[in-house]
């Protein structure tokens, strides 16, 4: 069996597909999240199909004080740690967040603060051993603030910048950091949304993530063409951009 991976927020469709792809390559896994009954079903499936060890552990991104113990338990149970996939997040509702600060706070805590809390500790754990991978799912929404989702976008943007810095710091300590920015992926989060186009399957995104990990890529968009879409969006002058309805 290959090294152990920790999947944070393992019930999301991208996380599930990435976990399956890792298990198919022989990695043992710890699936962490809030919905343990659901994770047990995933774990059973991956154990049967791929013959790897799969553990299930409760994880709450906002329980910052518990993250040390959580990580120690994951390491002990899984027999070490080779990589982390951070896939939890909370889209929230922009319109509600604009009115109700508690919604804004929830979006920031679950997408940014919680991520920093757990990744700081994961990075330290991996760096001590001088090897490993951190794969974090950010979002194209973090590349430029737009009226339709700027609270979420700012939290993801913060996460993307954090990951840049972490990559820089970890490079010198042997740990690779991969930022994944999904565009439209066919998940429960996007299901039924109007205006989607060229939607990627979670499986194709997972394949791309593992390839990017193998090649030590720093930042990928999934599907790939979102790199070009976001390049254009980032370069629209602000005087024009502010007039757009996006």
């Amino acid at each position: 069996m290959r090294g152990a991976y920790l999947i944070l927020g393992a019930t999301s469709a991208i996380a599930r597909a990435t976990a399956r792809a890792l298990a198919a390559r022989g990695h043992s896994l710890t699936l962490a999240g809030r919905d343990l009954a659901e994770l047990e079903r995933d774990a059973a499936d991956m154990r049967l199909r791929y013959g790897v060890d799969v553990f299930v552990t409760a994880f709450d991104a906002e329980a910052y004080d518990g993250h040390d113990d959580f990580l120690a338990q994951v390491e002990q149970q899984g027999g070490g740690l080779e990589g982390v996939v951070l896939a939890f997040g909370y889209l929230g509702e922009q319109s509600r967040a604009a009115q109700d600060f508690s919604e804004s706070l929830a979006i920031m805590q679950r997408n940014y603060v919680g991520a920093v809390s757990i990744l700081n500790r994961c990075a330290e754990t991996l760096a001590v051993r001088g090897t490993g991978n951190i794969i974090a799912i950010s979002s194209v929404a973090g590349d430029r603030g737009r009226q339709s989702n700027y609270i979420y976008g700012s939290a993801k943007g913060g996460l993307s910048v954090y990951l840049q810095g972490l990559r820089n710091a970890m490079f010198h300590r042997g740990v690779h950091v991969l930022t994944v920015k999904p565009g439209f992926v066919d998940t429960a989060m996007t299901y039924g949304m109007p205006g989607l186009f060229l939607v990627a399957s979670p499986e194709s995104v997972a394949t791309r993530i593992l390839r990017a990990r193998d090649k030590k890529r720093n930042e990928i968009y999934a599907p790939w063409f979102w790199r070009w879409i976001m390049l254009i969006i980032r370069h629209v002058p602000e005087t024009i951009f502010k007039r757009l309805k996006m």
Partner: protein
Amino acid sequence: MSATLNKELSGWGRYPSACCELTRPERYAELHAASGPSIARGQGRAYGDAALNAAHRVVLTERLNRLLDFDDESGVLRAEAGLTMQALLAFSVPRGWFAEVTPGTKMVSLGGCVAADVHGKNHHHDGAFSSSVLSLELIESDGTRMRCSREENSEVFWATVGGMGLTGIIGEVTLQLKPVETAYIRASHHAARNLKHAFELFEQYDSASYSVAWIDLLAKGKKQGRSVLMLGEHAAIDELDGDAANTPLQIKERGSRRIPFDMPAWLLNPTTIGGFNTIYYRLEGGKSKTFTIDYDKFFYPLDALGDWNRLYGKRGFLQYQCVVPREGAFEALSQLLDVLASSKHPAFLGVLKKMGAASGGLMSFPVEGYTLALDLPFSGEPLLTLLCRFDKIVMAAGGRVYLAKDARLDGETLRTMYPATEKFLQIKGELDPGKAFSSNLSRRLELE
């Protein structure tokens, strides 16, 4: 997460279609009925309107496809109902286990197999899909999960197998698999000159594990019903040679070609198909010497051509599949072929199969006798009129039509063909008093 998507849907026959409100749960806890009428949909391989619910909820089960338990001593497997036969076999065959019953496509969900109580080429010995089902988890209208089996909640079990999804959402299926030494089938083909001869061959080769006949529907007169009977047995390990013998449980991945767009309807016409049929009959009918073929090619020849339903063009097609009790089967089916021939309605693919005893499912299709399936391009009124004539022949012989293929039967005809309908409705009424489960099919057939 209960995001919905409004979308025009149809069954595999592409007739009829309806705009439905779709949800696609990714968590088992989210798999339940909506506040309004709901129907579960797996791979959408029912031909007609079984998994349509116009202006109402269709619950897609495709993302709930996990294996939950497998005992490699006993071959008992428990999985979520969204698992496909393809994924099941990809898991079980390399471990030396095969499905006890499989339909003619592997692109079906286990839930769909249960709901339609599907049958395969071994029905004459092994019965319908329900014979391999040990138990089910049914999600009722109030979200309660009910285990049912032959022993536990058995009335619900027998209403659910073949019940077209109308008793609740099938969440989990526990199946008995059967051990196989190899992933290969020893097959042989036998040419039948006409329908009479085909019946004789079915009786003669009754001991074969798998049997099915392809009928040339364009052969006329004395050749009417000319067919190729295809037989198969699971190959033992010492029957393989070459590469197959080294890796007996592995098969080569077969690329699936897709039909990229709707073919023009004129492409399938009596001349092109007649020519094809004659060549096929000569070529395939001549293979009377046993040959080895992998399970994928033997059981699922049409899966090699993804979206083959697009061959029928935009208007789609109907498949008429009936079964007639053994006594009057030959007379009824030859009469049916006569009516088809005199109608001059095009019909290309025909399949004939001997069936064994009924399973016990209240609305299950198979009864002991012969089943005939005809693929008929949709032509509107002329076809619907023709099929009503078929119904009369089938009913007169005590037969019935397969609901998984049906798109046009009415409630009264259904009640004649399926005498257990009232019993089914009584159980459904007790389970689902608020009518949370319905579909276009249930409204058409007054199954509510």
